[in-house]
């Protein structure tokens, strides 16, 4: 489990983990451990069961998807403070993209199954965590829509 106080502090320093009720923070920290990954580590593969949820503390993670005949395409990169692997707590618990570290990365990691049980049993924790998951996912949805527009493809003149 590691040092709970240190994990609380680490979580508090992230967008996702800051400002949580103390009870939720402690509970979350009890479920967490810190991991260091070398660059190029695959944390989750698209379509496969998502085992872990994490919050990036240091480094950078890419979300990639396989496009036939184009290979792996990076859709999004995740910066410190943001969450990866949220599929582990949202049915059907399978990754929506492949998650790869693109540089040495430190992350707080929660085991998905344990977190699911905790969220089911602990309504204080659930009411603190789910809105943040929703914010993270909705931000990505809004950003994906803008990317979908491929705005720069039709942008001919500059400003004037």
């Amino acid at each position, binding site marked *: 489990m590691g040092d709970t106080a240190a994990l609380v502090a680490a979580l508090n320093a992230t967008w996702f983990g800051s400002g949580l009720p103390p009870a939720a923070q402690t509970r979350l920290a009890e479920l967490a451990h810190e991991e260091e990954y070398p660059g190029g580590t695959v944390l989750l593969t698209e379509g496969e069961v998502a085992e872990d949820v994490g919050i990036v503390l240091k480094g950078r993670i890419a979300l990639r998807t396989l496009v036939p005949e184009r290979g792996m395409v990076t859709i999004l990169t995740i910066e410190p403070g943001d969450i990866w692997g949220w599929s582990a707590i949202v049915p059907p618990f399978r990754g929506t993209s492949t998650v790869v570290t693109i540089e040495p990365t430190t992350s707080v990691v929660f085991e998905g199954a344990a977190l699911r049980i905790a969220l089911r049993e602990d309504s204080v924790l659930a009411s603190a965590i789910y809105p943040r998951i929703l914010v993270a996912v909705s931000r990505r949805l809004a950003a994906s829509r*803008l990317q979908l527009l491929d705005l*720069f493809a039709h942008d001919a*003149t500059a*400003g004037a």
Partner: protein
Amino acid sequence: MITAELTRPERTTTAGRWYLERSGLETLVAALRADGRTVIGPTVADGAIVYDEIRASSDLPHGVGDVQAAGKYRLTTREDARAFGYVVGPTSWKRWVFPPLVELNTGMRAGHRVEFTPTRPDPTRLAFIGVRACEIAAFDAQDRVLDSGHFRDADYAARRKAAFIVAVQCTTAESTCFCTSMGTGPEVEHGFDLALTELDDGFLVDVGSPAGLELVQGALAGSMRPATPVEVYTAAADVAATRARIGDPLPAAGLHDRLLAQLDHPRWAQVAERCITCGNCTLACPTCFCTSVIQTTDIEGNAATNERAWDSCFSPGFARVAGGSFRTRPRDRYRQWLTHKFGTWWDQFGTSGCTGCGRCITWCPVGIDVREELMAIAPPVALSPEPARVEPVAASFDDFVVAQVVGTRQETADTVTLTLSGADPAFSKGSLGQFAMVAIPGFPPLPISISRFTVDGIELTIRGAGPATKAMCALKIGDQLGLRGPLGNNWPLDRAVGRDLVIVTGGIGLAPLRPVIHALAADRRRFGDVRLYYGARTPADILYHEEMRAWASRGGIEVNLTVDRAGPEWDGNVGVVTQLFDHATWEGANVVAFVCGPERMMQATANTLAGRGVTNSRIFVTLERHMECGIGLCGHCQMGKYFVCRDGPVFSLAQLGDIFGREGI
């Protein structure tokens, strides 16, 4: 725009210049007293120069000097016996023409009847000896406030009118002096009856009024003779040396506008951490005029006396109403004082409220120097607040000037930067963010942003998207094209001086901001943190990639890149540009933002910036509209009440209001 120039009456010296022996000072004091005047002048009291009654010239501070700095004042002993060898002390003449406590009226209540009896103004005839140029400017300022509007202060007017003024030219200065910057001194040029310049053995005397002349020709005649040219020259040289010693510590031109544009500068809160709101600055200030009425009643409450007492905008209760105070925080009160003194005073009274005497600096117990605060909050800008735009050339429907391609650089697969030379010199003098109408015969002219200003031309960065832009991208060195411009307005870089600047741009939208970044890097210290957020379609579409490294390493600019999509070989950010600062830690309160890119991207950016506390008046966007002429004649680029070519392309969101991003405008 309001300037820092004071309008002064013409010099009124008419009676030549005289020399008064040192012993004549006694004759002067005696003559003024014999005229029935109470003579007020500098005396030494409590370790300071204090203006008080002078009964004989021996009451003057002969041989006394002073040393002043922020929060520091010490009297010194001079090597000579000069009577006016100090600068200014804590008191000002305000104490005598606008006393700290003046009875206004008495009120009586008897049964159902009430009665008010105004107190008659004080008839005391006064004479002031030792009035400095900055203090005459203070009289001018007070005259405008108290004795020139529709409603006048009769007590002040009576006292002021009754005062005979013996001015003294400054031949000494302290570190706190800045009359030169405020245009008030050190030369005494008007507003006196007699003006003295102290020399080693006596005084050069200028006469400034009939009353002064009468004295010179009467009581003083025996102690005076016409001044010699050497005496006149020495006196002028001493005052000129004082001017040189003071220098110009506060660049005051444009201060009014600069200061009032910075009402939410973080420095207000910082200075308030030092300021103890004691109000010493307002009490020592020779022009601060705010008062409160104090009423004293008898024990039954039937007879009341009203007195006007000096108050201060630093007093906690000064802006109180029944529901509370409008300026509860020290930062509010400090801002009120400084913006009034150096800013809104102009709007109310047509002058600055500051005369540059430096009393507020010396007598601030925590050593706050207004000059330092003003320079931090509203520093002078090299760029004028409204940069003069160069007159465009070929500014008619039918005209273009010819320029030659002297360099081409393939920026990305479809984007080229052309370096142009030989066009009209107006182009290289264009403003940041302006554009040119670019023409090749056979293609429609197009508006293209200027992406760099060079010594003898400009650069244009063009993405080959349609036939005309592809033809432009295909130009080779030696080819010519037609230009009209430079056109449109510019990025208001002066608004970002002293603030943090956030530049958000995508795709080819970096081109019109490139000159901004060049200008920033050239004068980096004028700005706070500068952050560039740039989004491109793919890593291969990033513009000016090499140049960006220099912006980051040498220009002190934080460069953040992202792309919409990338292969696994790209180890940078992927995602939309707003994601780069979604979780950033900076606060938006002191940020000015320049945004350029597709309109949909600018909307998303504006929303994210608003979420971080950047107000609409500090978010500037550049708009793209169909343009054929670039000079507001063809009508294509209308957007609401604006022609984008003529009134823009740069607008603040506050200007655009709800037409920004609205469908079908």
